[in-house]
């Protein structure tokens, strides 16, 4: 699971009002190279919740991102930042671990890089 996915997911258990961001429990992180696609990064950048993204990158052991979200124009001018953003967003994978609902503590397991977001019968 990439951090882009983490940034999009929340706990949707019935009754939970604040299921985002999910806390990451790391068992194994792997890095997989992905070709940089500038247009894609530009498109997705404004949709990222930066605080959740920043915190998640720390948990995954990556400390190069700035705490405050830069202006979108930085993606054009600062190649170094673009590379870091790309790396944190798409190249870090949570291979094994869990996503934990911040409100209830319910664990959504991540195995072989696939988050299992399906709810139990009594959570629907």
């Amino acid at each position, binding site marked *: 699971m990439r951090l882009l*996915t983490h940034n999009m997911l929340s*706990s949707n258990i019935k009754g939970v009002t604040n299921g985002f961001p999910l806390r990451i429990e790391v068992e194994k992180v792997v890095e997989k190279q992905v070709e940089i*696609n500038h247009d*894609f990064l530009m498109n*997705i950048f404004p*949709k990222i919740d930066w605080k959740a993204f920043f915190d998640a990158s720390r948990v995954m052991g990556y400390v190069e991102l700035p705490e405050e979200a830069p202006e979108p124009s930085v993606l054009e001018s600062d190649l170094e930042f673009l590379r870091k953003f790309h790396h944190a967003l798409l190249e870090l994978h949570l291979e094994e671990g869990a996503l934990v609902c911040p409100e209830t503590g319910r664990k959504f397991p991540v195995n072989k890089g696939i*988050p299992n977001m399906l709810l139990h019968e*009594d959570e629907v």
Partner: protein
Amino acid sequence: MWYLCVFYHRLLDYRKPEVESLADLFGAFEDKQNPDFATQNRALEWRLPKHHHPDSPFHFVNLPSEDVARNIANRSILVKGIYELWGEGSSYEELKEAVTSYPDERKLPYLESESTFKITVDSFGKVMSLHEQKTRIWGLSYIPFKGQVNLKNPDHNFWLMETDDNATTNGLPPVVHRRIFFGREVGGADRKLIPTYQLKSRTYLGPTAMDAEMAFLMANQAQAAPGKLVYDPFVGTGSILVSAAHFGAMTMGADIDIRVVRDGRGPDCNVWSNFKQYGLPMPIALLRADNNLPPWRHGLKEVFDAIICDPPYGVRAGGRKSGGRKLLKGIVGPYTVPDDKRADHIPSTAPYSLLECVHDLLDLAARMLVMGGRLVFFYPVLREDDSVGDHFPEHPCFKLVATSEQILSSRYSRVLLTMVKTSSYTEELALAARIKHLEFKENHTKWLENGNLHSSVFSPADIESGDLKVSKESKPKYRGKYV
């Protein structure tokens, strides 16, 4: 400028929508004054050759430039070629007259002595011997070709295409008069894609994997392209996303069945390996999620450029959603999972009717697609139902831009719907959509309820009424989109 557009004689209903959607992708409608999607007329002008049936593979289409024409032709699946027409006629004398009077400034740049060329003779509805082909090529000697012939890799491709006046049988459209076309090829489909991606050589397959040709057509309807993000909420073995990835899009998929998305049939036979097999970039994300209760965070919207899917209609595979049995035998209270069993609990699922599924899909797409983004999905139709026509699901955020039917059996067919998001998602529109959905459900969807479609498709025919026999006898020789 008007171009001659020749199609492969397949999937007739899919041909023009494919060209229209690619024309839009390659900017054919861009300099229209009106920036509002909802009211824009994003359609091409089409014209038929004299006396041709609408199902004919020969069409004329008006395109803004040769670049657009080439881009469309090279990316399409069903366009055999787009040609600059130098002349047409119902006899070779008429053709000669037409080609001779075609302006020299359009012809001469392609006939220069430094260039190489090739002439291909093609026919529709008949077969020509090599000798006949040669005779026809020599018959073109009135055109001042100065270049060298190169059959392997010519600079310019010329085509001489002929239809006969007797092509009314054998499943071909009725062409009344003989017509001959001569033109310069601008571009043509790369049909090699289809054998490369054909399902029989795919390592990981499921029972409802989408065949390669159709998956490419879907990706074209969705305008998959580099820099875009494409989502499939019923990803299965990833067969639709493979085609989107081929066109350079980033892909993301979800499925309710974790065995399909996570495990596959082992380390070298899973959704990832299907992308690896063709050297395509891996999906950005695969996850297990329920389309009925999507896990996207509150406030997240307009992230996907396209959503492409083949929802489960319950004919070959039925849909499931979370929240299975609420009560266990003998227990009156609501079903609860004991705390000590929670960690490894495997939740049961409940049946998910197509009607509910389509409603959820439209709601998800309305929220998660960017403006102008496309929702492309299959929708089943019962063929005995005469009232089909306009009974497709609707949503106030979307405009239906194309419907293409593919007949699957004498009982039912599937229609590929292409919808473009024209209004942004608001709570009011979501409410209006719910009301529309209930109306739709009330009026014409009894058969979409659970299991009904399956039984309509598979229940034994009513033999006593003899309609089976009648339909066999009355089957017309030319069957149009039934080919």
